[in-house]
């Protein structure tokens, strides 16, 4: 018979790990529960009574869904920009030897090794000095800039682990450089590119600090939430938060299921 202490000692890692997971998920649970709240007053911080009102009318708050769609647009364009520029850099870094590699490497590493507020403030200094109007374009420029390094890191990791002999084989079979790239290199690098793009989208959509400095009067969704923390938080914010969590889980799980099925379908 095992005593309780032995059991505890054996499962310590599992218990501690699940405890951490609970800590990570707890706010999401609270956000979900409070999306069904019917608050009194401006703030939605204390439970009052169950209500479906916010779910029936998610866009019922002035300007909220506008900010949401603006954030989605910026995230989409920032993802496209950062993914294209970042993938090109990653390929150049892994596949070619050239002068100034070290400098390029540190230039790409630096944005990740700097507190976000430093980048945010310096961009604002640039825009102020040049007299550039803050708004959609300055936000987009900033987002492409900070997403770029993450795309390079993700794509580089994937291309590095790729067997260069596959490309040689394609060339031996008389594939031209374009054909080799499109039919061999790109499909193998695709998961890395997808990971980089997904990360860019999430980073851009959720970015607050850099946007706070460089948005002027433009209100993205995080800016709206920030403002609502001062003015009063509508329940609809929790509805959006819950929906985003559910969609994210479904998208990632779905993607993994597709990947698993593909793996199984391949003959070993």
């Amino acid at each position, binding site marked *: 018979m095992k005593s309780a202490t032995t059991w505890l000692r054996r499962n*310590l*890692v*599992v218990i*501690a*790990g*699940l405890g*951490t*997971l609970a*800590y*990570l998920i707890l*706010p*999401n649970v*609270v*956000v979900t529960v409070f999306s069904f709240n019917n608050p009194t007053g401006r703030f939605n*911080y*204390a439970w009052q009574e169950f209500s479906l009102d916010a779910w029936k009318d998610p866009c019922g708050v002035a300007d909220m869904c506008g900010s949401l769609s603006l954030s989605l647009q910026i995230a989409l364009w920032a993802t496209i920009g950062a993914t294209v*520029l970042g993938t090109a*850099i990653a390929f*150049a870094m892994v596949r*070619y*030897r050239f002068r100034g590699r070290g400098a390029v490497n540190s*230039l*790409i*590493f*630096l*944005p990740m*090794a*700097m*507190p*976000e*507020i*430093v*980048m945010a*403030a*310096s*961009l604002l*200094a*640039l825009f*102020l*000095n040049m007299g550039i109007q803050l708004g959609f374009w300055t936000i987009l420029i900033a987002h*492409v800039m900070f997403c*770029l390094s993450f795309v*390079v890191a993700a794509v580089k990791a994937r291309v590095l682990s790729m067997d*260069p002999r596959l490309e*040689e084989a394609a060339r031996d079979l008389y594939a031209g450089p374009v054909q080799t790239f499109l039919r061999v290199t790109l499909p193998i690098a695709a998961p890395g590119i997808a990971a980089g793009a997904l990360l860019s989208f999430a980073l851009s959509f*959720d970015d607050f*600090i850099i946007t*706070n*400095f460089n948005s002027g009067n433009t209100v993205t969704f*995080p800016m709206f*939430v920030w403002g609502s923390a001062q003015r009063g*938080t509508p329940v609809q914010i929790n509805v959006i*938060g819950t929906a*985003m*969590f559910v*969609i*994210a889980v479904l998208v*990632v*799980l779905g993607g*993994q299921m597709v990947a698993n099925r593909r793996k199984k379908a391949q003959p070993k």
Partner: protein
Amino acid sequence: MTAPATLPEVAVSAEPPVHKPSLKKRLVPYWLLLPGILWLVVFFVLPMVYQASTSVQTGSLEEGFKVTWHFQTYWDAFTEYYPQFLRSLLYAGTATALCLLLGYPLAYLIAFKAGRWRNLLLVLVIAPFFTSFLIRTLAWKTILADGGPVVGVLNTVGFLDVTSWLGMTEGDRVLATPLAVVCGLTYNFLPFMILPLYTSLERIDTRLHEAAGDLYARPATVFRKVTFPLSMPGVVSGTLLTFIPASGDYVNAELLGSTDTRMIGNVIQSQYLRILDYPTAAALSFILMAIVLVMVTIYIRRAGTEDLV
């Protein structure tokens, strides 16, 4: 970084053979790099230069600012705001340590013990990335509310007595105290710790554990002598990915803290966006950058890992 000049030549031979590249072909990497690097130079390097020039300007909003090489701003900014600098480093350091302490078991669990639950657990770690972190941070206001269940339990078990003694809480409140800010910071940056830890743990060959067991090492010894040292790259990049953003954060201090918990990020933000004292704000942000870069460099040297990304 300063490898002998002959070394890259050796590395080339391991690459796919390049047969007498024409000038056009030799320019390919530069064309690939050009747009992205240009973007970073114009919107990352150039802004730093502008901020440097802003930090040595004097003037006022009405009359305009002029570069007067007024380095005094740095000294004034530092002496006035060193408590906020110290607080930022203290909070960020504590949050990083807590992240490592909390994140390691979960990363270990996912890497070695999760089995078919692995993917689901990973999704639950990553999913918060896709939900607005501001909404989740606001949820902590509800969780830590005065007189709420969490505070009640912490009070009953005497936890708040300990944290009050440490100066991290006051009375039976958690909200608007340092503890709430550190809790929010830990929460917000925990995934940045777990993912690198998981990646480096997952790479470990489990046969090494078996071998250590065969040589009569107890589980704790296996962890101390085999698993933990092999996970060092993850520990280093995880602590950096947690500490660096946490040191410049102002969201947690603003939403969960009070005026007594203001971090340097809060000061920079209000100097730039409310007080509009651009030179002081620029100087503060450079001091923060310098502190972080120096600490990171020393840390990487001591930890002895160079392959970070």
